[in-house]
């Protein structure tokens, strides 16, 4: 059961800013409610009002400009999954969105809500990290851009100030000649582990840029730049051969934390296993093949 609250439905950012200024910590920003309503039901947070941001015009837009892709904060997972633009420019993101929770959650849950809630067991932040995601935050004090690497500070903790609203996340699509994969593992409703890997191959057939992000195993999803660096210059074949040492390095670099999904050691081990698999899948894709291996309790996008 929910305790009573008032519901405000601003239609512009200034109206929203006024409400945030007026209500401060008595208010919660509300979009899809897929996380917030659960917390309210459980009594884990108490607020006097919800500020519904879904009626703020344009906040759900998915658009391309200047080579980047901007996804509005109130765009729903279902819209990401089905967006023609994203399927073309950020296909792995669209593919991952199709596997977020279930179709009902995807129909109401929003990109902004997911990122701002910062549940460690989430796919979206991990895959957005691999697209160099940058979050836009708006307040009366001005707009600021915060890279996702600095936005998610820890479990359920972000750099958003109380007077700010996330308006969008901006992604840098991978250049042509990039092979990528996302592996998601878990037996519970939320993922136990997510690995995003993408490598861009030069015309000489060598890795010119690599992006490796590991999520769910620690308090926040992380890019692993040192491991990415080790992939530079590798051919697709080299990459496949180096799956094991790369996985060892990733397991070493990952931040893991014990929770209901398992111990810190277990998650480090799973990081090793799934980075190894991700490297194998991506190396095959970079060579123009597809691995059709099936891993238990795993979704390969």
């Amino acid at each position, binding site marked *: 059961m*929910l*305790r*009573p*609250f*008032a*519901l*405000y439905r601003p239609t512009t950012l200034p109206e929203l800013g006024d409400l945030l200024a007026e209500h401060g910590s008595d208010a919660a920003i509300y979009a899809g*409610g*897929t996380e917030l*309503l*659960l917390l309210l*039901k459980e009594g884990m947070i108490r607020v*006097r*009002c*919800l500020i519904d941001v879904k009626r703020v015009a344009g906040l759900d837009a998915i658009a391309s400009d200047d080579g980047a892709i901007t996804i509005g904060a109130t765009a729903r997972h*279902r819209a990401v999954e089905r967006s023609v633009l994203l399927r073309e420019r950020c296909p792995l993101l669209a593919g991952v969105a*199709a596997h977020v*929770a*279930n*179709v*009902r*959650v995807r*129909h*109401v849950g929003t990109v902004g809500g997911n990122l701002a809630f910062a549940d460690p067991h989430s796919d979206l932040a991990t895959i957005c990290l691999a697209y160099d995601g940058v979050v836009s935050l708006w307040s009366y004090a001005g707009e600021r851009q915060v890279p996702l690497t600095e936005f998610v500070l820890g479990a359920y903790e972000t750099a958003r100030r109380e007077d700010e609203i996330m308006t969008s996340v901006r992604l840098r699509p991978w250049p042509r000649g990039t092979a990528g994969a996302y592996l998601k593992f878990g037996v519970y*409703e939320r993922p136990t582990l997510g690995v995003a890997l993408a490598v861009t191959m030069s015309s000489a057939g060598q890795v010119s840029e690599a992006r490796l992000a590991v999520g769910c195993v620690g308090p926040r999803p992380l890019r692993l730049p040192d491991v990415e660096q080790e992939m530079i210059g590798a051919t697709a074949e080299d990459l496949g051969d180096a799956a094991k040492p790369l996985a060892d390095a990733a397991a070493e670099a990952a931040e893991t934390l014990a929770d209901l999904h398992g111990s810190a050691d277990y998650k480090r081990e799973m990081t090793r296993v799934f980075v190894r698999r991700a490297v194998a899948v991506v190396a095959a894709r970079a060579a123009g093949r597809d691995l059709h291996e099936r891993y238990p309790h795993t979704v390969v996008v």
Partner: protein
Amino acid sequence: MSDTRTPSSCSLAFTVNGRAVTLEVPAHVLLLDVLRERLGLKGAKRSCDMQVCGACTVLVDGSPVSSCTYLAVEADGADILTVEGLGHGDTLDPLQEAFIEHGAVQCGFCTSGMLMSARALLAEDPAPTRERVAHYLRGNLCRCTGYTKVIDAIVACGRPQEART
């Protein structure tokens, strides 16, 4: 909440199973409770209460939502379909017939949610593959009979439509 300066109550005008309904509801009331307690439609069930199990699935403008975690005011102006609206009088919907024919029901608690998800899927994809059905129904849990017969029923229901077109 006693503070009347805040919009804690909203008027809700929507269509439920083809019938126009107007209600005054507090902002914090969930769609499932409006359906069950105010409108007497008990087909949607409260079970996990956290959008995992699918027993409370209803369609809002054709899209499946978990009515247990969906504010009733969100349905203002929408067209709601619950399992009570699937059939017509004494005539069952072909999906319901297919569930019976394939034995896709055991205790029945999850069935209304399964049917509503299946209805939404068939509207999107009139002839879904088994794989597509399994993916779409990932969020509808059955704890007694399993999923094979449910998938059989939905796939069977899809095929004749494909043949007709």
